[in-house]
């Protein structure tokens, strides 16, 4: 299984440089964040001579073994992600506008899911695909919309059910979300997903 990768030209790529400190080295606190929760960061060699550690640390960058430092740091990092979810969450969707059935896929199963959705569309079944490209922060808003729109959501996974739990907790309808799970080392075939799609559309609301 091979396919092409397109590498964009240099001029198509936007470079964003990290914020640099404007204070004098002796006043520099490398982990004191601005309002956007991102601290300005000097490069090594800039003359700021600061310390970076994997241990929990305070704004100066040094560890002191204090629980409140750990709590403050952990919450800032968490909030930095959660507060920017719209910029971080990435997904792609196909044929979801009028869909009554949706497939939610993450990773390599997307290939089979897309083939299945296209084939089912050709047979006139109103099915679409939501491919998640990021897993955290979770695409909660998009999944909520889907839950309100479609009758059935199929989650194919090469495990015994991980992503499905995240989708299920946003669904209020019993049996709205169904999984296809495979752990025998083989891939989930489009035919298996088509079968699951048809099960829903043919039985007209009775999902199983």
């Amino acid at each position, binding site marked *: 299984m091979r396919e092409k990768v397109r590498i964009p030209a240099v001029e198509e790529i936007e470079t964003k440089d990290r914020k640099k400190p404007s204070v004098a080295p002796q006043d520099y606190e490398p982990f004191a964040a601005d309002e956007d929760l991102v601290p300005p960061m000097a490069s*090594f*060699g800039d003359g700021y*001579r600061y*310390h970076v*550690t*994997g241990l929990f640390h305070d704004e100066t960058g*040094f560890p002191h073994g204090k629980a409140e430092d750990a709590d403050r740091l952990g919450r800032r990092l968490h909030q930095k992600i959660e507060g920017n979810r719209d910029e971080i969450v990435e997904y792609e969707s196909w044929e979801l506008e009028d869909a009554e059935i949706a497939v939610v896929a993450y990773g390599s199963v997307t290939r089979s899911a897309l083939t299945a959705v296209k084939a089912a569309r050709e047979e006139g079944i109103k099915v679409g695909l939501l491919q998640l490209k990021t897993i955290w922060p979770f695409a909660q808003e998009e999944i909520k919309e889907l839950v309100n729109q479609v009758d059935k959501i199929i989650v194919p996974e090469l495990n015994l059910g991980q992503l499905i739990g995240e989708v299920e907790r946003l669904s209020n309808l019993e049996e709205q979300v169904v999984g296809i799970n495979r752990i025998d080392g083989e891939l989930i075939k489009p035919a298996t997903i088509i079968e699951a799609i048809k099960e829903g559309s043919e039985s007209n609301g009775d999902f199983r």
Partner: protein
Amino acid sequence: MEILDSFRTDKFPHIWCSGCGHGIVMGALVRAMNKLDLDHDKTVIVSGIGCSSRATGYLNFDTLHTTHGRALAFATGIKFSEPELDVIVITGDGDCTAIGGNHLIHAARRNINITTIMFNNSIYGMTSGQYSPLTPQKAKATTAPYGNIEPNFDPCELVQGAGATYVARGTAYHIKKLTRFIKRGIEHNGFSFIDAVSQCPTNFGRKNGFKSAVEMMQWQKENTITIERAAKASEKEVKNKILVGELHHNNRPEYTANYEQVIEKAQKGGDN
């Protein structure tokens, strides 16, 4: 340059136990850097995890205290992106040869211009004395109460075999030699490795019949032989002794310099 300028004195006292050899080794590093008059703003010191690796917190440079075993991986990234910086790695025997064993051999193979100082106390001291790949066979550890059955690496032979171009061994006892080897390691253009034998009275000494740190340094004196002396000594004299000295020194192309050539070639749009 004042020697104290190299320290973040407000971070003292350090975490090391009384009698620990790590302060002596850190002192040797600072004296070596001082002799070379390294630009403090252009020197980066990177460490892993463990007692030894806490040294970066006390040194007044750009310092990076990384994850366990990965000091050389981070240091490679720093050197690769800013080759003009002097990059020094502080690591322990467990950090360097167990968790970071792969990073060690590949840094040596690439001959990247990084100086690695391995604070070698033959034990995982911070976590109370589990045996490491450098704990001598038959020595006792919390995880080897009947004596260690595993043969230890000779770390100097290991990195030499992997391609390091400057390899030396000193001890906390041989402090002047150690300082000199570190200095030469930093001066050397290529991958330098200095095995700095250190003592852990708390978690190695107590389990292995040493009554004090002084006894352990006495052991370092009596159980080592300089490479110059070993060349003239009888086989019996050298047997079971640990070699101290510059064990290996040669020159071959350095990694970041080779990479620089690739960048130039690619930017000219030349054939690959």
